[in-house]
Structures are given as structure tokens and as C-alpha cells.
């Protein structure tokens, strides 16, 4: 073997371009958690905004540590385990950079997902959950709900059956969305809801958060190709188009129904589109992301109204946007999946000659995630309720969580 051949081989094995893309994507996904915090925080009341930010930042403190300790190994190692991983890579044991670094890059990349998934639930429990209860809920939920469902979907029994989830529609959004419903059923309604209104305290904050989320979501979806390749490019394109189409759809529904183009409608639609395209990002192409975005935008716009009719106080619409959006996107893969475009060996959707088999698998995968996540989350919240308590006192709820729970105030009066 000539030196040139040897060098070429070395360079190919290192795959520096792929590693670079995964590292950049990991940083993009990390940025999504502060983005989510602003998105939720702006919708929250001014006396609770710091509590909302801290619930999200808490996830960035505790979950990465838990992820490298036992999360990653239980979620991914070995890949072929059906239900739960082993402790083979606990505390990063056996994970080094002898392969050029890609394995560790993936551990970091997936760790960002582990951090943001419990954070999604914070929007539902806003304004009334004890921070100490959240501080325990987030890591325990990550370990006993996120990790197993992630395992089933990625390499486990659901994935082995042929269901598809490119970047976390079932494993992340449906999973966290239905958990949010379980959490608020135990936590109860905010004082005065729904008679008393709680309009957003800072729409500019919501819009900044939305921008950060969209930006970070390119890493979330296109990074999930785990290579700098054509699939990553198409996933990027899908993330771009589905968010725009869903924001457009939501805004148009509001314009016709309520009379105005609203900032919150644009933001909510963008996020609903991003959620819906997440499972489909590496499986659909052409105009499909636009159709998926339009459908998700319209459905989620109506879905956020369900809580008032059904009487569950999902404060910032985690169920209506993440659960419903994730479910819609995941099921639509059953119609729009196009293996020929990607040269992939996954099942084709109904519109691409695959019949109804993929749609059935998508239904089974989501039903399984829901059937596990909902009762386990209900149990965890109930356990916290009867031990340390999950709810702040009425006095704190009325006076604001920022001062009572964190001894901080977001907006000081000029005289202070």
C-alpha cells in the first residue's frame, strides 16, 4: 500500500466532515433548551418567568451528568437490545476516541436530546409546580420514561418492527407530550383557570425563543443523519419548509377565525411544524414537508383549544403542540415516506406504493410510547405528590414563584 493510499484510507476512516457536522449539530441542539425557555418564559406571567427559565436550565445542569453516568448506556448500548440497554458503557466506560471521535460525538449529541425532552414538559406545569418536585421529576423521568422509549424506537423492538422516527417524533415529542398531560392531571389546575385569563407577559421573548428553536432544530433534525450527507441536506430542507408551512397555516386559520395575524400564532405554528417534521425529516422529500407542515399547523391550531373543553390545565399547550404535532408528523410518515429518494431500505408510505403497512407500524409505535409514558408519568407525579408535594402554596402561586422559589425578580421597578 502506498503512502498516499494509506493516508486516503486514514482520512476516510476518520470522517472528519461527519464528525464536524455532528459536533456543530450537538451545539445547535443545546441552544434549543434556552430557546424553549424563552419561548415558554415569554408566554408565562412576569412573576413566574424566572421559575420557567430555571426549570429549563435545570435540565441542562442535571441531565447531561445523568446521561453520561447511565443514560446513554441504557438508551443505546448495545443497539440491538429490544427493551433496555446494558451498563456496559456506564460512566463512559469503554468509550474513547480510537475510532476518530464519532462515538463520543454521538454520546454528546444524544445527550442534548436527553436534556431537552424533559424540559418540554415544563410548559405544561408552569405557574404552580414546586421547584424541588421538578428538580427530582426531570432526571427521574428522563431515566425511567425517556430512556426506555428511546431504546425501543432506536434499535429496540419498535425500530426492529420497521416503524420510523428520524429525530424523535415518537421518542421525544409524543413521549413528552403525553407525559405533560399526565403531569397536569396530578398537579391540578392553576387558581382561577380557565375563567381567569393568563395572557403572555412578553411576546418579544416568545419570538426570540422561536427563532432560537428553529435555528437549533436544524441540528436536531439534519444532525440526526449522523453524517454530513444527502439525507442531512434533505432533513435540513424539510426542517426549513415544514416550519414555514405550519406557521403560515396557523396564521391563516387565526386570520379567518379570529380576525388577526398574531405573533403567537406564527410562533406556535413554526414550532408545531418543527415538531411534526422531526420524525419524518429523513424519510420525506419534495413537497411532502410542505403538506406535513400545513396539516400540522391547522390541526395543532385547533388542538390547543381542547384543554378548555376537556378541562385539563396544560398551561402553555405542550399537549396541543408537542403531543398532537408529534403524533400527526409520525403518522404522516405512513403516507409520505419515500425510500427511493433516499436510496434507503425503509418501508414506503401509502402514497409511494407501500400500502398501509408503515402506517400500521407508526400507529403501533406511538400507541406503545403513549401506553408506557402516560401511566408511568402519572405514577411518578403521584409518588412525588404524596411524598414531598408537587404544588406550591396558594400564597406563592398568587404572589409569584420567582421570589418564593428562587429569591429573584425578573423585572425590577426603576426605583429599586
Amino acid at each position, binding site marked *: 500500500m502506498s503512502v498516499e493510499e494509506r493516508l486516503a484510507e486514514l482520512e476516510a476512516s476518520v470522517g472528519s466532515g461527519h464528525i464536524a457536522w455532528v459536533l456543530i449539530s450537538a451545539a445547535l441542539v443545546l441552544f434549543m433548551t434556552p430557546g424553549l425557555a424563552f419561548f415558554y418564559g415569554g408566554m408565562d406571567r412576569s412573576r413566574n418567568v424566572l421559575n420557567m427559565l430555571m426549570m429549563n436550565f435545570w435540565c441542562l445542569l442535571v441531565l447531561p451528568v445523568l446521561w453520561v453516568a447511565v443514560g446513554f448506556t441504557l438508551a443505546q448500548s448495545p443497539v440491538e437490545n429490544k427493551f433496555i440497554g446494558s451498563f456496559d458503557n456506564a460512566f463512559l466506560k469503554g468509550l474513547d476516541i480510537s475510532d476518530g471521535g464519532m462515538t463520543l460525538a454521538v454520546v454528546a449529541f444524544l445527550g442534548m436530546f436527553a436534556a431537552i425532552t424533559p424540559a418540554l414538559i415544563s410548559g405544561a406545569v408552569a405557574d404552580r409546580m414546586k421547584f424541588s418536585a421538578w428538580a427530582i421529576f426531570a432526571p427521574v423521568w428522563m431515566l425511567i420514561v425517556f430512556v426506555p422509549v428511546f431504546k425501543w424506537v432506536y434499535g429496540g423492538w419498535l425500530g426492529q418492527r420497521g416503524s420510523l422516527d428520524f429525530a424523535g417524533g415518537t421518542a421525544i415529542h409524543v413521549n413528552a407530550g403525553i407525559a405533560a398531560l399526565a403531569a397536569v392531571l396530578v398537579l391540578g389546575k392553576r387558581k382561577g383557570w380557565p375563567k381567569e*385569563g393568563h*395572557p*403572555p407577559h412578553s411576546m418579544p421573548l416568545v419570538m426570540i425563543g422561536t427563532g432560537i428553536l428553529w435555528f437549533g432544530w436544524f441540528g436536531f433534525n439534519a444532525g440526526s443523519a449522523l453524517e454530513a450527507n444527502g439525507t442531512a441536506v434533505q432533513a435540513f430542507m424539510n426542517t426549513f419548509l415544514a416550519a414555514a408551512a405550519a406557521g403560515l397555516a396557523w396564521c391563516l386559520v*387565526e386570520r379567518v*377565525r*379570529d*380576525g*388577526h395575524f*398574531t405573533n*403567537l*400564532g406564527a410562533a*406556535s405554528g413554526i414550532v408545531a411544524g418543527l415538531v411534526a417534521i422531526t420524525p419524518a425529516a429523513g424519510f420525506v422529500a419534495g413537497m411532502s414537508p410542505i403538506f406535513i407542515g400545513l396539516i400540522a399547523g391547522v390541526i395543532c*391550531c385547533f388542538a*390547543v*383549544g381542547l384543554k*378548555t373543553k376537556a378541562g385539563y390545565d396544560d398551561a402553555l*399547550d405542550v399537549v396541543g403542540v408537542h403531543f398532537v404535532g408529534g403524533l400527526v408528523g409520525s403518522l404522516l410518515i405512513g403516507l409520505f415516506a419515500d425510500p427511493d429518494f433516499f436510496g434507503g431500505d425503509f418501508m414506503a408510505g401509502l402514497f409511494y406504493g407501500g400500502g398501509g403497512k408503515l402506517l400500521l407500524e407508526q400507529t403501533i409505535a406511538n400507541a406503545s410510547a403513549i401506553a408506557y409514558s402516560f401511566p408511568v408519568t402519572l405514577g411518578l407525579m403521584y409518588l412525588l405528590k404524596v411524598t414531598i408535594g408537587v404544588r406550591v402554596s396558594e400564597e406563592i402561586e398568587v404572589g409569584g414563584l420567582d421570589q418564593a422559589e428562587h429569591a429573584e425578580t425578573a423585572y425590577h421597578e426603576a426605583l429599586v
Partner: protein
Amino acid sequence: MKLITAIIKPFKVDEVKTALKAAGVLGITVTEVNGFGRQGGHTETYRGTEYQIDFVPKVKLEVVADDPAVGEVIEAISTAARTGQIGDGKIWVTSVDELVRIRTGEQGADAV
């Protein structure tokens, strides 16, 4: 001496200030306030849910004037702040018993 207090639309502050300066007023105090009168509040819609916002942002403006100047001050404010639409605000006048300029200790009309 009188204290003239006016509640006006926020976008009229500059015009009222200019009119008061032209009328010879040397000092005013403004505060951002919220409230409602006959204009009432308004509704805002977030994710399809309507919220009634009862308190409308207004500016409160306070001027102390010597008795002979009161009419001119009221005229300046009401002319400059008027749009003819509901919500233009109100002006009321109260008596001032004492007035002291802190720097010099001047009292009464001399301190205006």
C-alpha cells in the same frame, strides 16, 4: 396655587409638553399610568382565547401653577391632547396649600 392633573393619551405627550412650554410653564411631572374610563379596555387574542384587558395605558401629567395662569394651562393641555375620540382623558384642578422650592427655600407663588 393650583395643582393641575391631566390624564392623556401617551402619544399626545410631546404635543402637550410643547404647548405647555409655549404657555410659559417651567416644569411638569409625567407618570406612566394604567386605568379605564368610558373608553373601557380592549380584548387581546392568544391562541384563539380572548382576554379582556381592562386597564389602558395612559400618561398622568402634573403641573403646579399660580392662580392667574390656571386657565391658560388647562387650555393648552386640552387643545393639544384632544383628538375628538373616546379616551382623550381628563383634567382636574386641586388647591395647593404650600409650595417650597427645595434649593432656595422660596415659598408659595415664588416657588412656582
